[in-house]
């Protein structure tokens, strides 16, 4: 049984200019120990789906799903009290801006111990010892001294390490990392990704990595979900996705990477990601797709079988094209 099982999750936002569906019928089945990457451009709804799992969406959002269970518990029917016991303990999340995610008014030690005090029955000495142990495990030198420091005294990479320490403090079964390295420099990004992968292997937790960076996906993930305009357009294992992408959007996205350029020009995708009012009715990608025909513009595309990357497309690529 999957650890996190989501069927047909949709998230609608009430905006001043009418309703907006940010996430449209997405499915996730994440097993214990799995590493899943969710890839997409801005506005593809990749973060919103995971925020719905965490229950962190604002009141303007309406979440609907056929099924949303974590570890056998129904997240749709759960009481707020029970959810608060679950998130931060069994499901933890780290965010893009490490410095902004920490409270500037409290020391990092206080903030790490806060989650331990909430979820674990530890006395204050045991909490301090555990905090030191956590900082050591995320590779922060002089952990005792760092515990007494405030977030502004640490660099961005250090703050992200502190966030990771907080996230793994209660040994979560699922860690959601939302663009964990986007705000960091390349050499620090390499350190943080290595740390996340090492911690995942060590603890056996499941890891969901939300990113827009295909390089990060290739180096860390086992399975990949590609999202476009709120829909999951392709779901594949990482080797298959890079070797033979099935959805034209995935193929175009990979071809647009500078390292895959043939000659001086890049294979760019014409047009822009659709916004609130210009989403195509049938296939969302049809207006930008080179292979689209009248069927793509009028009939909703079907979900293809697993050997075709579960592509949401009338005419999935048959392979070899990349």
């Amino acid at each position, binding site marked *: 049984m999957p650890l996190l099982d989501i069927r047909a999750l949709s998230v609608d936002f009430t905006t001043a200019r009418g309703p907006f569906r940010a996430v449209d019928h997405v499915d996730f089945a994440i097993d214990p120990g799995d590493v899943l990457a969710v890839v997409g*451009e*801005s506005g593809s709804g990749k973060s919103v789906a995971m925020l719905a799992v965490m229950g962190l969406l604002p009141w303007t959002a309406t979440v609907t799903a056929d099924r949303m269970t974590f570890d056998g518990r129904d997240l749709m029917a759960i009481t707020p009290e029970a959810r608060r016991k679950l998130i931060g303990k069994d499901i933890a999340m780290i965010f893009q801006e490490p410095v902004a995610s920490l409270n500037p008014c409290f020391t990092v030690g206080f903030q790490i111990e806060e989650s331990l005090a909430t979820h674990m029955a530890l006395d204050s000495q045991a909490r301090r010892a555990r905090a030191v142990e956590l900082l050591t495990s995320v590779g922060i030198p002089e952990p005792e001294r760092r515990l007494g420091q405030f977030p502004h005294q640490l*660099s961005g*990479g*250090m703050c992200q390490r502190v966030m990771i320490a907080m996230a793994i403090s209660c040994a979560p079964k699922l860690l959601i990392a939302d663009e964990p390295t986007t705000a960091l*420099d*390349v*050499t*620090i*990004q*390499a*350190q943080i*990704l*290595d740390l996340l992968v090492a911690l995942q292997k060590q603890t056996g937790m499941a890891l969901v990595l939300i990113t*827009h*960076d*295909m*390089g*990060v*996906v*290739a*180096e860390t993930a086992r399975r990949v979900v590609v999202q476009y305009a709120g829909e999951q357009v392709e779901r594949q294992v*990482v*080797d298959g996705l*890079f*070797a033979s992408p099935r959805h034209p959007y995935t193929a*175009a*996205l*990979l071809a*647009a*990477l*500078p*390292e*895959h*350029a043939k000659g*001086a*020009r*890049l*294979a*760019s*995708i*014409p047009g*822009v*990601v659709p916004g609130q009012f210009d989403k195509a009715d049938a296939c969302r990608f049809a207006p930008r797709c080179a292979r689209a025909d009248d069927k793509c513009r009028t009939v909703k595309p079907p979900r293809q079988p697993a050997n075709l990357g579960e592509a949401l497309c009338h005419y999935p690529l048959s392979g070899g094209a990349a």
Partner: protein
Amino acid sequence: MSEVLIRADHLARRYDVRRGMFSAKATVKAVADASLTVSQGRTLAIVGESGCGKSTLARLLAMIERPSDGKLVITGSDVSDGDPAKVRALRQTVQMVFQNPYGSLNPRQKIGAALEEPLAITTNLPAAERRARANDMLAKVGLRPEHYHRYPHMFSGGQRQRIAIARALMPRPKVLVLDEPVSALDVSIRAQVLNLLADLKAEFGLTYVIISHDLAVVRHVADDLMIMYLGRVVESGASAAIFAAPKHPYTQALLSATPVADPRAKRNRIRLEGELPSPISPPSGCAFHPRCRFANDRCRTEQPAATISAGVTVACHAVAEGRI
């Protein structure tokens, strides 16, 4: 040999910073020592992590700031002293495009007015002619004539970066300094803007100085490459040569740390320990020595001089001594 447009010798830029009411003022050497030449028609990429001084260097080259030390010669005239008359005359030769297209356009100014403003200031063309040129430029960067009357908030990030590029091109510059031109953009849009930059370069015979931290982008666009660490140039030369065989330990680590979009690629990552030191108190000797695998006592005390071999300039004791 094509014409040299920008020549910089031992350029430096220091800032005085206050560190509280009672502590003494400190000096940040944002750019400690940088020398470069930019020739007509080339693309020079300046690469480094945050705090390495690459954006400050870009602002020096675009004459937005005056160098504290060193010599800067642009198309033959020395502007090191920041003489306002000379700088004003050269402003049209070197134009700059900034990283954040949301912040670099005036939200209350229509696109047409933003494009015409440089012409209104620097030329005495009649309004009709200015307008014709603005419309021309809109078409060249892939925007439509009706966009002339719109405000910046009505555009997407990619379109705004097109507008920023169009505005920089209005005074018909020879050199475009682009500070992280595509790092705020999505992958599919990034490819569009990079293609546009390539087209414009061919059409107007432009020369680019591109500041970036994205090595995949740099590898695609650059002819020449310069890698900076804590205000100093650690390695510079032809881009292809450096990507094929990086010499400086920092360059090697930077290249190996960049994720490759290919799950079957062999990973041979050199892990750098530690963080970037503060530019207020840079380490003694070679600034990179606390994170370097090859550091010895000489590296800890003595600043390495730049040595040239096979067209690539490297500032490293270990390379000079043949230890790597």
